[in-house]
């Protein structure tokens, strides 16, 4: 059939029409390819015209960056001054001012550990030990009382370190529990299976806030007289118990993705249950569920903001208490936009990582 076509000797020399390549071609193909799309494009451009110039004027041209709250009241634009003036309180809360280099180093360590772990070539057994060591060092840095560091009560912890602590520890501690729950839910033993199902469905059916309420008002009643657990640890336990149920469901997805042949093969070579799970099933199942696990990390990170409601000073609460200060009252938009940007950058980075990972791991199976 190819040969039957009429020959076009000069086809190579004829350039495509100017309206189908380059900028004009792109515009035509992507913005004005039908009357409806042209209308939409014009509508969006009109909306831009209406909203972007006033926003730019508010946020950049008329804004103040280094001033007092009083000067801001007179200005028309945004009062970004609220951020530099209160940055250290927003980031570190009531942590003693002179010691704030410690949480700063701890955050830097955590972030570099996270960045180091995102490369798959670093996924070795040593990574596990690096994490354990890193977390211990971070704990010592924050808590003090060793190596000549002054001891800082956990009630003084606040701001970004608290947010990161609650989410990272929440996920690391919840993961083993979640795996156990998922295995329990798949178990052949009816009592164990129903215990796990009840736990998972109960936790997933209620809002996190009810568990946080429980940790703050009910949990103290559970303890024998004279024993008390500090508020941060109680909230942390609530977050761990909550996250574990969601992890269990994700891991169950991975377990169900395993073919029956894997179990049979393991049985055939004489492995017992623990060996089958540890050596055959979990290494494969957990690999499948890495991307959804990152999504759980993202929502755990966002959900830690709920501790505001039980009056822990996380990143959001420190910002709010700045806004209660009469000198800075009325600049909520600026402060909230700043905090939103911190959350956005972290979550966006993680979700991009998750998507990248999903693409990479996809070829493996």
């Amino acid at each position, binding site marked *: 059939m190819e040969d039957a076509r009429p020959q076009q000797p000069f086809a190579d020399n004829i350039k495509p029409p100017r309206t189908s390549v380059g900028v004009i071609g792109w515009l035509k193909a*992507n*913005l004005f*390819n*039908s009357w409806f*799309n042209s209308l*939409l*494009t014009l509508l*969006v*451009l009109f909306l831009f015209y209406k909203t972007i110039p006033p926003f730019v004027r508010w946020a950049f041209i008329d804004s103040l960056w280094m001033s007092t709250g009083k000067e801001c009241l007179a200005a028309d634009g945004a009062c970004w001054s609220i951020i530099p003036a209160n940055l250290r309180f927003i980031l570190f809360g009531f942590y003693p001012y002179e010691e704030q280099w410690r949480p700063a180093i701890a955050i830097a360590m955590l972030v570099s550990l996270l960045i180091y772990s995102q490369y798959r070539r670093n996924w070795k057994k040593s990574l596990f030990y690096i994490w354990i060591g890193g977390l211990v060092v971070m704990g010592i840095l924050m808590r003090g009382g060793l190596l000549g560091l002054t001891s800082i009560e956990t009630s003084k912890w606040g701001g970004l370190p608290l947010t990161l602590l609650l989410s990272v520890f929440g996920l690391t501690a919840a993961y083993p529990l979640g795996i156990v729950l998922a295995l329990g839910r798949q178990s*052949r*033993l*009816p*009592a*164990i299976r129903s*215990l796990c199902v009840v736990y998972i*469905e*109960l936790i*997933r*059916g*209620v*809002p*996190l*806030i*009810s568990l946080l*309420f*429980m940790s703050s*008002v*009910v949990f*103290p*009643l*559970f*303890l*024998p*007289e004279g024993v008390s657990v500090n508020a941060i640890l109680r909230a942390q336990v609530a977050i761990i118990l909550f996250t574990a149920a969601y992890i269990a469901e994700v891991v169950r997805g991975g377990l169900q993705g395993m073919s029956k042949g894997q179990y049979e093969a393991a049985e055939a*070579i*004489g492995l017992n249950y623990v060996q089958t799970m540890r050596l055959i099933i979990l290494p494969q199942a957990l690999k499948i569920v890495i991307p959804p696990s990152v999504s759980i990390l*993202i929502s755990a990170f*966002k*959900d830690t*903001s*709920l501790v*505001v*409601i039980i009056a822990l000073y996380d990143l*959001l609460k420190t910002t*709010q208490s700045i*806004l209660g200060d009469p000198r800075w009252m*009325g600049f*909520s*938009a600026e402060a*909230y936009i700043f*905090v*939103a940007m911190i*959350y*956005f950058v972290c*979550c*966006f980075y993680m*979700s991009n990582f998750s998507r990248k990972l999903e693409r990479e791991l996809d070829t493996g199976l």
Partner: protein
Amino acid sequence: MAPNETPLSGTEAPSKASFWYDPKVRGVLYQIGALLTVGLLAYYLMSNTLANLERQAIATGFGFLEKQASFEIGESLISYTAADTYFKALLVGALNTLLVSFIGVVITIILGTFIGIARLSTNWLVSRMAAIYIEVFQDIPVLLQLFFWYAFFYEMLPGPRQALNPMAGVFLCNRGLIFGVPAAHPAWQYMAIAFLAGCVAVYFIRRWARRRQDQTGQILPTGRVGAALLIGLPLITWWLAGAPTAMNIPALKGFNFKGGVSVSPEFAALLLGLVLYTAAFVAEVVRAGIQSVSKGQTEAAMSIGLRPGQVLNLVILPQALRVIIPPLTSQMLNLTKNSSLAVAIGYPDFVSVAGTAINQTGQAIEGVALIMMVYLIFSLSTSAFMNWYNKKMKLVER
């Protein structure tokens, strides 16, 4: 133990395995162990709790529900005063939760579908804008968004005297959103009845039309007939009832608006925050659902002569909905659960009323148990519906 030393364990009688190595016995023992552990833990916590409650002289049981609540609630669907019981106060809270969840779910589905479709638009600008919206609103904690919108109403909007007036009869100020509604007239009730009657009629007409199509092959344009019934019946009723056109427009009197319907800033902020946050997730669900139906399906449907409307209704939607509905329900459930964050911005939802009750009576266990129970009822009934739906929609394979 090397595997090749026990090659016959499966084929020989299992009674040969010693008592402790019998999988059945072990299974029973494991289960007894697990139940005992859970039971002992529960017993330990219970005994501590009872001792603590006795020491602090806190009453137990749900008797407090009968007592007088003696606190006011800002917004209520039913008449409520501080003299009413705790039970009624909690009922008011539960109704408020239901109200905000219901309205939120309806708006979220509409907005989310819209953005999900925009994300797939061939218009580069529109699709980029939708992508940015999804990414930004997904990645900011919903509580922060609620605080932002709450501050937006209280700090950034002007007072009633300088209220923004984006449309005739609609006012936006720091007292909330106030808009005009048609003045009270019996015609509106009749119209609602007519609409319901229309729905019932459409249901039966569709059934009849399907049966007729199965028997004779003739197709009745049920879509057009249904639309005519649903719009026409209420319109005729309206006209018969005297065609009332009077409006109840809010007007500035003194320091606040009189007349019309007003939505409190708390409710508006809660609704706005929840809808904008959840719509980002719904948009992703809708996009994935639409993309899951391959292009060949559309082409095949067209090639057997279906009209575009039929292609959508009979081929695309049934397949896309099968993918969309399960994650969509879980998003709706998330919205309902997130509505409990109302407590942070002072809207009297169930959690917030229960929180007040806990503070007043000290009966934390009962209060938290009530909160969990109410949300569990929502979740379990939704998942029961989901199971039913999944069974109904399951692909029937040959």
